């Protein structure tokens, strides 16, 4: 039951005199696809940052697979199996696609400096394994044909796929995707939806922030709604769609795309 469950309890995040999150509590069960929605500025990315160690919570607890992770640094959180992507396109720009994915595979290697300097056989074996793994990830995501190109030269849609590939390379048990479909055309969004489905089929829990309601409603097992730093609703997509507080939040505020 604790396999890769995320539990957030009474999470408070305050910075610069602003209460960005207040008393937020929710759970993301293993193997599910859960979406976090809310108008702009509701605190969704802040929640991601607090969970994955980019921000320290002011109060509250975050538990993953039964272990507390609040206040850990991002790389430690990643080590526990929680990997996130970023809202703004985040790549290793001046390096090839293949190298980008290899960098994502960092945690899957273990060679230390001494062994590397001596060029021990196991180091070379590990490199070969990592290169194979990179090929698998690139194929899964659909960018293997781009492996020699510089990340910065990819078209936007493929850059976002590369971001997913990098995150998947880290072999997460749970993936936090921050607006994975933003800026995409409908065809790209369709294929992103299917990709998320395939990721879930691999046994990876997916927790995503999204604005596109069709995508959210189409793919989520559960939806959480944030507004002004507070959780105002949670439930199945159908329940949330009908929730008056949610409708109010979107009609009253500046949300992108009211629930259809």
């Amino acid at each position, binding site marked *: 039951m604790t396999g890769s469950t995320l539990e957030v309890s009474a999470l408070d995040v305050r910075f610069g005199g602003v209460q960005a999150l207040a008393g937020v509590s929710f759970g993301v069960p293993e193997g599910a696809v859960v979406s976090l929605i809310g108008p702009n500025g509701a605190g969704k990315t802040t929640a991601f940052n607090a969970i994955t160690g980019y921000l320290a919570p002011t109060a509250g607890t975050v538990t993953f697979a039964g272990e507390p992770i609040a206040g850990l640094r991002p790389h430690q959180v990643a080590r526990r199996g929680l990997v996130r992507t970023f809202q703004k396109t985040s790549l290793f720009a001046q390096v090839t696609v293949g190298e980008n994915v290899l960098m994502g595979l960092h945690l899957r290697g273990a060679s230390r400096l001494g062994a590397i*300097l001596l060029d021990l056989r196991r180091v070379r074996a590990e490199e070969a394994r990592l290169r194979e793994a990179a090929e698998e990830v690139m194929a899964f995501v659909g960018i293997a044909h781009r492996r020699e190109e510089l990340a910065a030269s990819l078209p936007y849609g493929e850059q976002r796929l590369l971001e997913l590939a990098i995150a998947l390379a880290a072999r997460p048990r749970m993936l936090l995707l921050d607006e994975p479909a933003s800026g995409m055309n409908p065809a790209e969004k369709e294929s992103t939806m299917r990709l998320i489905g395939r990721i879930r089929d691999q046994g990876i829990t997916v927790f995503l922030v999204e604005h596109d309601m069709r995508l959210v409603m189409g793919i989520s097992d559960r939806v959480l709604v944030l507004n002004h730093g507070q959780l105002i609703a949670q439930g199945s997509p159908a329940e949330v769609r009908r929730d008056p507080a949610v409708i109010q939040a979107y009609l009253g505020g500046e949300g992108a795309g009211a629930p259809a």
Partner: protein
Amino acid sequence: MLAAALVGVPVWLTNQYLVHLLILAGLFTILAVSLNLLLGYTGQLSLGHAAFFGIGAYTSALLDVHLGLSFWVGLPAAAVAAGLSGLLIGRLAFKLRGAYFVLVTISFAEVVRLVSLNWMELTQGPLGLPGIRPPSIRLGTMASIPFHGKGAYYWLVLALAALSYGIASRVVRSRIGRAFVALRENEALAESVGVDAFRTLVLATVLAAAMAGAAGSCYAHYVSFVGPEVFLFSYTITMVIMVIAGGKGTLLGPVAGAVIFTAVPEVLREAQQFQMTVYGAILILLVIFMPRGIVPYLKERRAGAP
């Protein structure tokens, strides 16, 4: 072919002055390759590198002058001492980034220089440490031949330069090297896939520092004198120019840079006083017009040519 020529230099190159230049170029190669790990691969503008060089030089010199320990002890000791100072300053400096980091590294080198200038009991201050003995090779239990003439030094420096290039090459092509580049390109993303920025950057610094310290030890025994000038910021700047002009973030770049910029002051020998002014102008122009350096520029030309 080139390798054979390089190894054979003391045999076929009779001009001792040119051999001396090659020895200096070799030392600067080690320094530039090590600085490149920080500047080029991890993308950290570490401007205290002369400190590691100087600490290595002084360690080796002090061990010889005060304790009579030969170069063969001094060399590893220098690398260790410099590596430890890299650990110290790395742990301090990498709590910061950007301009703050640069300032701490510069301050560190300056503090070390002031200490070497003022701590008369240890370093003899501005008088420095003269009379450092050359390395010698033991033959059996009785005889030992000290290095005599430039040939032996040349081979020593050539070996160490090749070794440092080899080390850099292995590290850069490895998982650790990828972590370096990941941190340079996008630190937040690197952390999100499990790269421990702090530890990785400190590791880079320790490795770079140890290599610079080894070069310092060679320098001390070759020149036979060490003074506080080894810590001068102008040496760090020379190394920075070598790395940037040659091509930071490439393996051959610092080597090319070291060779070119050891030769350039000699070409400008007549106008030696213009040297640093020209260096300043070169740095400005490089950053504006050829920011990736000479080696990448040449590679692009070659790739682009029909």
